[in-house]
């Protein structure tokens, strides 16, 4: 297993290298440059040239890229001109916020999705199945910004039960309880789609597994129905569901932009969109690298869990 994990981690390097090159090229191709973004209406060629000189953007593209790459190897991701702080600080801060949101959403989505999937498989074609199937369809077909705003208007504005936006209360805030409190709405909104996907998959995986011979064996042993569903069927179904949860993790991480915007969550998705807008190439590079690496790591984690769960794949 350690050799496998190491191998996968090494395979991450070329992916990240390729990504950084793509990001760099894209940012070079996009019209408008940092100087333009800083100066806005005042972007005279003179001013632009001065700022490009200040930011080191007057050098040739390969030189810029190689300089950046050289710094990255030493752990220096550069400095964001639009935020006036080191890229690493900003990226880590924003990424941890996204991780909290995405993590909460993923846990919620997994719990809800698995439960819904199990219920709907166990009561296949029954009322519960129909309700779950319908709810799931609604969930995966709803635009999330719409759902988010609806939840805000109901829970925060109309009933004043939950905070509208932000990560901590401005006043008397801080601490885990406050964080959880602010997490409820955005995490729920973000979890809806993933929960739907997981529920659908769990349902079909459970149905598949419940037809297997070993489930008949469990019944022939006199194992209770609960044991059959949770100990036998669910365990086997998880082998198919876990990798999909891994992929959903990637989506939740990358797709949190709308939710981060609607709920003013200080996450990395929003940061990346803003950074593209301000042509903050170093910040975009740093953000994409972290997001991509985390995507790969989530999938690796899912694979490892899958391997732990299914001894047949190991080795």
């Amino acid at each position, binding site marked *: 297993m350690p050799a496998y994990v190491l191998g996968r981690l090494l395979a991450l390097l070329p992916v990240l290298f390729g990504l950084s090159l793509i990001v760099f090229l894209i940012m070079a191709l996009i019209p408008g440059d940092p100087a333009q973004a800083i100066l806005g209406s005042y972007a005279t060629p003179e001013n632009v040239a001065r700022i490009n000189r200040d930011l080191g953007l007057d050098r040739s593209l390969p030189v810029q890229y190689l300089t950046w790459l050289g710094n990255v190897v030493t752990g220096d991701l550069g400095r964001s001109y639009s935020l006036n702080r080191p890229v690493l600080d900003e990226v880590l801060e924003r990424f941890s916020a996204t991780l909290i949101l995405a993590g909460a959403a993923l846990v919620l989505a997994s719990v809800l999705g698995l439960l819904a999937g199990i219920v709907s498989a166990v009561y296949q074609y029954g009322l519960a199945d129909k309700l779950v199937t319908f709810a799931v369809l609604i969930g995966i077909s709803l635009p999330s910004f719409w759902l988010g705003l609806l939840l805000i208007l109901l829970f925060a504005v109309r009933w004043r039960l939950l905070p509208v936006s932000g990560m901590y209360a401005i006043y008397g805030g801080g601490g885990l309880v406050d964080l959880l409190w602010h997490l409820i709405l955005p995490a729920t909104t973000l979890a809806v789609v993933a929960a739907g996907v997981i529920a659908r998959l769990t349902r079909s995986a459970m149905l598949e597994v419940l037809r297997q011979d070993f489930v008949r*064996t469990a019944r*022939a*042993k006199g*194992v209770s129905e609960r044991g059959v569903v949770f100990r036998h069927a669910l365990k086997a179904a998880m082998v198919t569901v876990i990798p999909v949860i891994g992929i959903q993790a990637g989506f939740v991480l990358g797709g949190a932009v709308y939710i981060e915007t609607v709920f003013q969550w200080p996450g990395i998705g929003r940061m990346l969109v803003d950074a593209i807008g301000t042509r903050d190439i170093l910040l975009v590079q740093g953000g994409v690298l972290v997001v*991509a690496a985390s995507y790969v790591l989530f999938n690796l984690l899912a694979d490892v869990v899958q391997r732990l769960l*299914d001894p047949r794949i190991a080795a």
Partner: protein
Amino acid sequence: MKAARGFFARLLRNRMAAAGLLVLALILAVVLAAPILPLADPDATDPARRLLPPFSEGAWLGTDALGRDLLARLVWGSRLSLAVGVAASLLAAVLGSTVGLLAGYLGGWTDTLLMRGIDTLMAFPYLLLALAIVAVLGPGLLNALYAVVVVNIPFFARNVRGVAAGLRHREFVDAARLSGMGSARILLQEVLPNVMPVIVITVSTTIGWMILETAGLSFLGLGSQPPQADLGSMLGEGRKVLINAPHVAAVPGLLVFLIVMSMNLIGDGVRDAIDPRLRTGLPGKPGTATRVERPDVPAGHDGDAGALLDVRNLKVAFDTGSGRNLAVQGVDLAVAPGECLGIIGESGSGKSVTALALARLVPSPPGVITGGVVRFEKDDLLAAPPGLLRRLRGGRIAYVFQDPLTTLHPLMRVGDQVIEAIQAHQRQAAGAARARVHELFAAVRLPEPDRIMQAYPHELSGGQRQRVSIAMALANDPDLIIADEPTTALDVTVQAGILDLLAELRRQRRLALVFISHDFGVIARICDRVAVMHGGEIVETGPVLDVLHRPRHSYTRRLIAAVPVLGRAKEILRTDPLEAPA
């Protein structure tokens, strides 16, 4: 063509998919008819009449922030969104499948390179990729379409590659290669048709998602250019007035929702209709116990006074799409304590169904017990409440199945599986249960019980697995073991060992045994009596030696003749004389 008709028939049989098709067809009809419908000009602004609520005069669905007619924009906007979504799906399917086919079929370096590229693409946050593409190409619906296509290529590439890689070394591909076909022709003529179902399934399940994504880009202002309406840009415009005029966003939102939902429903239907596992007609997941639908319960029958198991007139049927097929048509059986009854017949004769029906383990749906009585001592198992049934299963009635690789749980250590069997019926501490497993493993002559308890099924040999199954069946000292072809999957020497073990256990523990097999030699070796099944009925029954030497039914004679070497059966009889139950 027939296949296609079957496909549509199956699709339409799925009520949800049919509903989805209906909704989509309605939307498509309206959208296609847009030029001839009496709609207002979708682009005519009238700011003085802005944000009218639905059902206003002259604007059924109200107006947007510029006073444009929402109904007209909705119809024209859906037209555009649907066209773009479908085009994006098809384009992504073609490009992604090409990459997947090449990677999967060629393998080696091409595969590594292409799939590394796909990995990189997937690791890129999808929204950013789309944003970047549109930023480079400039805004416009066509560029948004390209972005969505690029983002979705990996899904097709990955799915198709998996299947194509599996096909690479199949016989028909090798044959084509040997016959001198070029790679391109093999790909197109041999591999592609086999990959097609995967592509169709991926298209049908992602098309809704694509429409949502295209709408998402338009929503961000990266799609259609004003004043052109598409669902995404309508949502984006509506969002600005969401608080004071929610209908402006709700109307296109609802339609996006309807379209995506109907696409998803159809997608699911297509998947189910293509999925070969569902073609064989197993529509649902099996319940706890076989459903019993007896028109009348045979009353007043006490059964054979001395019998442990007494089966009368057992009928089992299977529901299929075209009706109910009777698989077991009125079987009578009786097993005395300690007796071994063999049931013999060829595959499809109903012998395994009979065996499973005894403890109501026939999967249901589609299986139904349509008549008869199964009496175990005094209880009619066909009327037993779930609790009693559960206590009997694995308690006094135990099963041994044919192929222990599939019948043991692949992800649980075998020791735990036996412990579970014990603990399902006895309150036993973990330590005591483990000790009991040791005893059982010793009884079935498994060496190194500690190592084997820790092993997973796939780490054991076939014979070891079957011994584990038998140990599991013995766990609660049953009175009756029903063994459904327990040796069929094993090679001959192992088979003999297992048979010896069963015979010995039966002797030691006074077990009754119902032994199902298609091999007269095997039955003759361990059973007292035999029932011969054919076409769901018992055609002949009697002591093994009588039946073997004086078969009355022509089917029995054929079965005996089918024993590989006729002489060998007699030899078994000679060298291993049956002992009368003591």
